[in-house]
């Protein structure tokens, strides 16, 4: 009888010990970093060096999976409901705060909510800059804003999509400066750039990296930036904060998140990993090539940054409201 029970006892003991050992062994499987945007975009290009550097630190494969759709909602939702075991991470852009607000606006059940995620670290925070075609008469941001006040609704701008990052940046400016601009949404940042280069719209709020070559070539002119500080590559371009519009602050930031219920020790491990990863020389070299400065924030600092940004955007989206269809 004891002989028959013995294997059961061993199994029971093993089952009791196993979870404990499983925790010690994190990570023991490939980790997936979900990028909710198409390959080749800002999020994707930031995620890959991060994943590679994390892989070096953890000595465990970290793979990037693109799960695009609905301006990022599909990928973000998939991580919000994923198993919180530390094997699924998210590299999100600032739109993570915008999407649930937009859903609320349309009385839809939100695809996900911001509190379904546990923040791990901020990787980069590119402020957007305002560019206009070089042949337009506005030489400074003041010219632009004054003209917009004189002719409300006549100056057009393109964006990557309604309630997207480039749209919200412009909206924050409009609300701060009390001007009204005409929005022409496009299907992504690429078409938005093409539109302004072709002279079909008058302005664009864009991440600096993509427009820098065009500014240098003299096709576009940068008027001002939405950041806290001036951009290193464009030292002559003032910030809206300097010009007296401190509410016009917007960053296309990228940060790493995990599902909220991921156990604390795993989260701590991930945070330490990312901290080490951003100091990796190969990572730094990769980010340099992309001309994207690394802005690393963690813990309380990130939390504060994230919440302030989310508050600004939520208010912005609410004030935009639903697009009027007369």
């Amino acid at each position, binding site marked *: 009888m004891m002989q028959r029970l013995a294997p059961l006892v061993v199994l029971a003991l093993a089952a009791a010990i196993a979870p404990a050992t499983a925790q010690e062994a994190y990570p023991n499987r490939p980790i997936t970093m979900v990028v909710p945007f*198409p*390959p*080749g*975009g800002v999020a*994707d*290009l930031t995620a*890959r060096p991060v994943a*590679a550097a994390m892989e070096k630190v953890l000595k465990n494969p970290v793979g*990037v*999976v*693109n*799960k*695009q*759709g*609905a*301006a990022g*909602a*599909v990928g973000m939702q998939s991580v919000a409901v994923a198993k919180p075991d530390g094997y699924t991470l998210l590299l999100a852009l600032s739109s993570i705060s915008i999407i649930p607000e*937009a859903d609320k*606006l*349309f009385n*839809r*059940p939100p*695809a996900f909510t911001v509190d379904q995620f546990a923040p791990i670290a901020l990787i980069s925070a590119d402020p957007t800059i305002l560019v206009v075609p070089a042949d337009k008469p506005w030489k400074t941001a003041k010219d632009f804003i004054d003209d917009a006040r004189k002719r409300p*609704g*006549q100056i*057009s701008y393109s964006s990557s999509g*309604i*309630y997207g990052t480039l749209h919200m940046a412009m909206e924050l400016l409009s609300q701060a400066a009390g001007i009204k601009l*005409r*929005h*022409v*949404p*496009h*299907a992504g940042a*690429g*078409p938005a*750039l*093409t*539109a302004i*280069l*072709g*002279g*079909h*719209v008058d302005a664009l709020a864009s991440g600096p*990296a993509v427009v*820098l*070559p*065009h500014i*240098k*070539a003299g*096709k576009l002119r940068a008027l001002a930036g939405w950041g806290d500080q001036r951009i290193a590559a464009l030292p002559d371009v003032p910030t809206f904060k300097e010009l007296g519009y401190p509410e016009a602050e917007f960053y296309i930031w990228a940060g790493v998140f995990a599902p909220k219920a991921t156990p604390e020790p795993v989260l701590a491990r991930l945070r330490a990993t990312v901290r080490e990863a951003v100091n990796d020389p190969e990572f730094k070299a*990769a980010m*340099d*090539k*992309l*001309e994207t400065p690394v802005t690393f924030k963690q813990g309380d600092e990130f939390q504060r940054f994230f919440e302030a940004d989310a508050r600004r955007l939520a208010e912005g989206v609410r004030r935009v409201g*639903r*697009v009027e*269809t007369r």
Partner: protein
Amino acid sequence: MLEVAQNLGLGFSVALSPAVLFYAFIGCVIGTLVGVLPGVGPLAGISLLLPATFGMDATRAIVMLAGIYYGAMYGGSTTSILMRIPGEAASVMTCIDGYAMARKGRAGAALAIAAVGSYVAGTASVVGLMVMAPPLAQWALRFGPPEQLALLLLGLLVLAYMSSGSMLKALAMAALGLLLGTVGIDQMTGYMRHAYGVVELGDGLGVVPVAVGLFGVAEILATAGAPTPPAVIRPRLSELLPSRQEWRDSAWPIGRGSVLGFLIGILPGSAHIIASFVSYAVEKRLSRRPQDFGHGAVAGVAGPESANNAATSGAFVPMLALGVPSGPIPAVMLAALMVHGVAPGPLLIHNQPALFWGFIASMYVGNVMLLILNLPLVGLFVNILRVPYPYLYPAILVFSILGVYAVNASVVDVWIMLVMGVLGYVLRKLDFETAPIVLGVVLAPLIELSLRQSLAMSDGRYSIFLEHRIAAALLAFGLALVLLNLYTFVRRGLDWRARLALAGKGDSS
């Protein structure tokens, strides 16, 4: 001229270096594979392999990625011709006449014509790219929303020529396809349309699951259960090559397809896959025997295949000359350039002559490599048809599901493919053509967006279409075409009545 020759010399010295040659070859092989596999298209292939290029030098990276792109256009025709299953969305039109040719025992000929047409188009359009890139790109930028709308409406007219059967049925299918294309988030206002809470439908159904489902899965559902399995075609070697008549028939379509595809490829915002649809319609309109289309017309294979290859080179024009993506694939390639520290932009050609000319030269080389890869492989591919169908079709299903799933790690895409498969099966039974549906799904979001963007630009005034000269010209052209067709239609009707009246008179006398 001398400068171009010198630059080409520089380019070839780069392109023919062993390392670059090697990566171009890898790109071409992978591209062909990607094209042959249903579901996985060039965008998926390039995106999947983008990370692998990070360790490489910039020239090698984009040479390989470009090889995947135009290689996929070569490979896409293979399954279309042999099994009526599109290897990727742009090959849908080749399914129609290509498969008909295969049924007639001319599979080898169709494959060879597709390969040669792709080669001629690819090479000719690289010449265009090389010589005219900067001015062409500048001109292409002038195509904004009003011009795009005008062009897309012209594209809609194409639908009238796509069907070999009833015009009314084609119209109904087009309307259905356009309607299916409106599923998803409305780009102008943010409302979700007909998505029923499924977030994955936010970007619409997606042309790849729809095309693979309507043509691939539907084909299998219809033929797999047939009491007599499809006759195994055992072509003889002499039948593998096209006859002289077939070569003659394909010459003009290849030429026209190349020009058409190149022009469509340059335009930003145009869906490059419509190049093959438009080419098919043009060939049918200009053919002396339009009744052949749908039953194995050589021009129906030569034209679309050339067009989609030319479109890939056209897509590189704005990318290289201006740093502006004309579609999602050039966008990924631009990202590849950025990752390697090469800043894309108007000064790229100037700052990086070795890269630009090396790229151009490698495209020549790549096209030759693909021709060499594909022509002898015609015999090999045709032998796929010898695999007993009960083993073949489950394998095709597995690849389709895998391909459609892998693109976005989304089971919803697989479901879309299956639903469209059933729809395609039912529609075939009811004698409807399914190609207009694919075109509709592609065109609907573009047409709606361009129209509403144009109205947003002009603050609601429709006169913007007259103020923009290019748009006005295109619309006038389209109107002229419609009127011309109406005229012919009416005349034929009057003719028929006159003949009937004469016959009546003859009877009564």
